[in-house]
């Protein structure tokens, strides 16, 4: 039988009594985009941190390409093809833009093909030699994406990449993410901007207080009383 690209099963993560994740189960297939929405503190970023190996879950499992990768560290996962962007982008400021990407390709790629020129793809090809300390926030976010792509991930976790972009940039970003999915990459996209998510996918998970309260299309979500209650209560 064939496996899903990613299967997260009943994952629990507790921080000193606070259940940041309270039994979350999600699945993503290759070539598919899963949107995750929900109010602040609902556990979206914690979920990404668990999948990318920053946190070890207290309970539950993470399977990737059919293999149990629960508790693997980020380095190992990155080399296997799971990568991510950060809500607050963190380029290596002591290096140039190109060196940032070059390092990622060298240490993280491990023989997977990936896209040919991540900097070109992220729209940074005109500032390759610039020091990463001189970038605007939007450029930092683009570099964060380029760096993650340089490791040629099969699964990409995107944490609020769209915040602060104008409508034209938003549209361009959506096209890029759709292109990646079309190439066979699985994506999880966390986003506050529902319109942006709607542009990407019909499959959305709504989270609240560490739980998944809804899965389906955004249109259906808007008619779901629990989802509406969570958003009205915010």
């Amino acid at each position: 039988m064939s496996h899903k690209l990613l299967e997260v099963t009943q994952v629990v993560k507790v921080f000193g009594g606070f259940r940041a994740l309270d039994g979350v189960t999600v699945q993503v297939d290759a070539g598919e985009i899963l949107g995750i929405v929900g109010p602040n503190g609902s556990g979206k970023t914690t979920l990404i941190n668990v999948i990318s190996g920053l946190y070890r879950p207290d309970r539950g499992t993470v399977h990737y390409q059919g293999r149990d990768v629960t508790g693997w560290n980020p380095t190992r996962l990155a080399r296997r093809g799971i990568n991510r962007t950060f809500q607050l982008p963190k380029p290596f400021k002591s290096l140039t833009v190109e060196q940032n990407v070059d390092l990622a390709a060298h240490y993280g790629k491990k023989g997977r093909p990936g896209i040919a020129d991540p900097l070109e793809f992220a729209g940074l090809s005109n500032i390759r030699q610039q020091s990463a300390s001189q970038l605007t926030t939007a450029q930092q976010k683009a570099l964060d994406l380029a760096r993650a792509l340089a490791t040629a991930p099969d699964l990409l976790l995107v944490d609020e990449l769209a915040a602060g972009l104008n409508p034209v940039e938003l549209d361009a970003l959506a096209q890029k993410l759709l292109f990646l999915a079309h190439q066979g990459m699985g994506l999880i996209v966390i986003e506050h901007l529902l319109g942006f998510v709607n542009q990407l996918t019909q499959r959305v998970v709504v989270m609240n207080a560490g739980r998944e309260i809804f899965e389906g299309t955004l249109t259906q979500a808007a008619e779901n009383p629990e989802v509406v209650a969570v958003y009205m209560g915010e």
Partner: protein
Amino acid sequence: MPKIARSLWMNGFIGVVLLVVFGVAPGFYANTSILFQMMMYIVLAQGVNVLYGFTGYLPFGYVGFFGAGAYGASLAIQMGHLPGSVAMGVGAMVSVVLGLVLLPLLRLAGAYFAIGSMAAAEIVYYVVSNPALDKVTNGPYGIQLVQSYHPVESYAFMVGALGLVTLGVMILRHSRIGMALLALREDSVSAAMIGINVVTARAGVWLASALVAGLAGAIFAWHTSVFYPTTVFDLNISVFAIVFTLFGGAGTVLGPTVGVVVLFGLYNVIGISSPQYFQLLFGVLIVTLVLFLPNGVVSLLRRRGWDVP
């Protein structure tokens, strides 16, 4: 890319100049002891440079490796009856073994690491110099290596060590590994996320710097041939190596070299006859440096837009 190539050339130039100067100098300048110690401090400063400049660990106990190398080599000569040249390798390896034992120190950060490494060095010193171990290490009474005394050969070894270490730092500075270490120093989470193995990378640098200090200690023991535990475990050795590095500028090849040549030169002019005046100057220099020039004197060049090798 041409920019990198140019500074690589600059680095090679520094290395060649160093080797020629220290290789030829004994023919013109009779006080080889100062030349020898200057080379020794460049080697040690580069060891500190690699560790601090590329990983951010400040090793106040760096002298522990130096002393371990000195004793390792001495015991290899005394008890193993090995020739000096082979004993140098033994000394360096003893230091690497000590580095392996002390690997858990790398779990500590910032000041905790600095203090912890100092405590570790003191422990090694107290063990080596303990009267209870006088059958092995001769306790506090030190080492006499009469049979292997060879000032010329040991001097040549230090020139070799200097060349190797300078070459190593050059390569590190211009290689992808060096870049990866800088990335790791800046943000270990992001570094891990792009596939850099944080633990291995830090441990590798730690062991390499232990090797360097152990080698310097071993050659020092061979060259000096009579010394006490207080000589080779003197905390001032760590301190000198650290201050020379910081003065010149960590993370560069040129910085530590400049630091040693200027400050150790100064030490030999005024420090020997009236050490307290040198110490005072040293202290004032450090305070001024931290407050006004935290990246070392070579950062002055960089501010003028020079590419410092």
